[in-house]
């Protein structure tokens, strides 16, 4: 499939997912109507919103840092959890007003950073001892419920992202507290993130599918390799890395392809160093096999185009 055909498949997919009509697409392509104005103002407002959010966040951080030692427990909580909640409420208000909508994403992100910090400060100031893991679990669960419910109500992609982040932290800390096997934890979380990425890829929240795919595949492959390395079943990792490349072509994901390819290259290099460290013939044979693969792939595409796809 050429790059042009690839792009066409993506365009059709996007039109179907967002329920666009041919007239709307044609008007946008011709640069008519509200499209041109909307595009310029959207970029500008988003730029200012991100810059504003960054300045507010950095300013607040410096102010809190300068006054930290002079503050009592209540002051510390008010200065961290307070702005976090305010930012969250402000972001919610922004989603209900079309003129302020572009500011909602950075505000949700900053609120997603400040609120858990405030919760942890509150637990530290008013908590009664206990392990740090319990505090992190409590904070991530509170944030998971808040972000998940808001995502359910507002359907914003940024909230899907924060929900996944806090959900992952809650799952990891819970399994850590349960003394779960770390390999199994990593493999399960990797597979889970891949499934979530697959669903995101087929939803209006496709923008974050690549990140979720990347971390899911990286976790799954890294933990599998760490578990199987130098064991009799080590060869299974090669199958899993190949499966990841196949999944990348099915899901049309560059993140998966990158992770799968790096895993394959890493495994082959490690295998050669392990078994043929002093044999120069091995890399040459590998190059020859690689060329045969490339030739076979090209032949398969030609056969598919000439004898299968046309019929």
């Amino acid at each position, binding site marked *: 499939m050429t790059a042009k055909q690839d792009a066409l498949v993506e365009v059709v997919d996007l039109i179907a997912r967002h329920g666009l009509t041919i007239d709307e697409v044609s008007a946008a392509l011709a640069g008519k109507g509200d499209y041109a104005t909307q595009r310029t103002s959207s970029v500008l407002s988003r730029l200012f919103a991100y810059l504003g959010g960054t300045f507010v966040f950095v300013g607040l951080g410096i102010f809190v840092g300068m006054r930290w030692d002079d503050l009592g427990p209540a002051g510390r909580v008010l200065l961290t959890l307070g702005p976090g909640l305010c930012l969250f409420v402000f972001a919610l208000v922004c989603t209900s007003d079309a003129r302020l909508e572009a500011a909602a994403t950075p505000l949700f992100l900053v609120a997603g950073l400040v609120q858990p910090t405030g919760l942890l400060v509150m637990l530290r100031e008013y908590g009664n001892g206990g392990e740090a893991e319990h505090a992190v679990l409590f904070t991530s669960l509170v944030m998971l419920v808040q972000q998940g419910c808001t995502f359910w109500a507002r359907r914003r992609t940024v909230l899907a992202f924060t929900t996944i982040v806090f959900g992952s932290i809650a799952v990891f800390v819970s399994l850590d507290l349960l003394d779960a096997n770390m390999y199994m934890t990593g493999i399960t979380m990797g597979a889970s993130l891949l499934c979530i990425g697959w669903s995101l890829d087929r939803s209006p929240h496709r923008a974050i599918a690549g990140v979720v795919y990347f971390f899911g595949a990286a976790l799954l492959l890294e*933990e599998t390799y760490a578990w199987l390395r130098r064991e009799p079943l080590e060869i299974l990792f090669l199958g899993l890395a190949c499966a990841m490349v196949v999944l990348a072509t099915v899901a049309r994901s560059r993140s998966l392809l990158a992770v799968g390819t790096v895993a394959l290259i890493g495994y082959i290099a490690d295998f050669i160093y392990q078994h043929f460290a002093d044999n120069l013939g091995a890399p040459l044979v590998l190059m020859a096999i690689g060329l045969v693969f490339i030739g076979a792939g090209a032949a398969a595409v030609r056969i598919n185009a000439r004898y299968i796809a046309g019929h």
Partner: protein
Amino acid sequence: MSVAKFVKDNLVLVVGLTLPVLLMVGFLAASALPALNDPPKYDFVFSTRDHPSTQTPVDVRLLVKDHVLVAQYTKLPSAPAGYASAGWRKLYLYDAGSRTVRQLEFGFPPDLAALEGTREEPVAAAAGMTLDPALQSPDGYELSFGDRRGGGLLLEMFGGSRAYEPRLRKDGRSVPISAGGREPFGFNSDIEFLGWVTAKR
């Protein structure tokens, strides 16, 4: 939308969300099975480095002699020609029954200033204990550090220090030694195993 229709339309998402929950349920069930458990039965004594606010002219070493915990005090050359003490030791007892750690009393000897050369004396806080300095307990457990393998990228992403905490290990079983978060006993390299409590007088 009914639940069945939601599951049918979002089967991959449901599988993705269910996987970690199933793993949690599995580990919860495994930890609740008493028949498969073989908890450690023996208490043990260990020490960690302590850094008192005032420098001491005496160095201390804890060791088990004839099944009794002994403190070996050595007078250090006086400053500025000599070295200051490398610090004191904190003494702990791991209680296998309650799976908790408590600190044992171990302060400076009363005649600290008058001490000369090297002197040994039993530790009063462990006076009633018969200690076995063997690395493996009579029921087969051994103190180890960082044996919770795996989690490389996970720990990079989410942090966490439990993978490196001291644990009692026997075959596939691994029991964390926790002080309940109230009394952190420092870095792993500081922990010095002293002996298993095989009897109490």
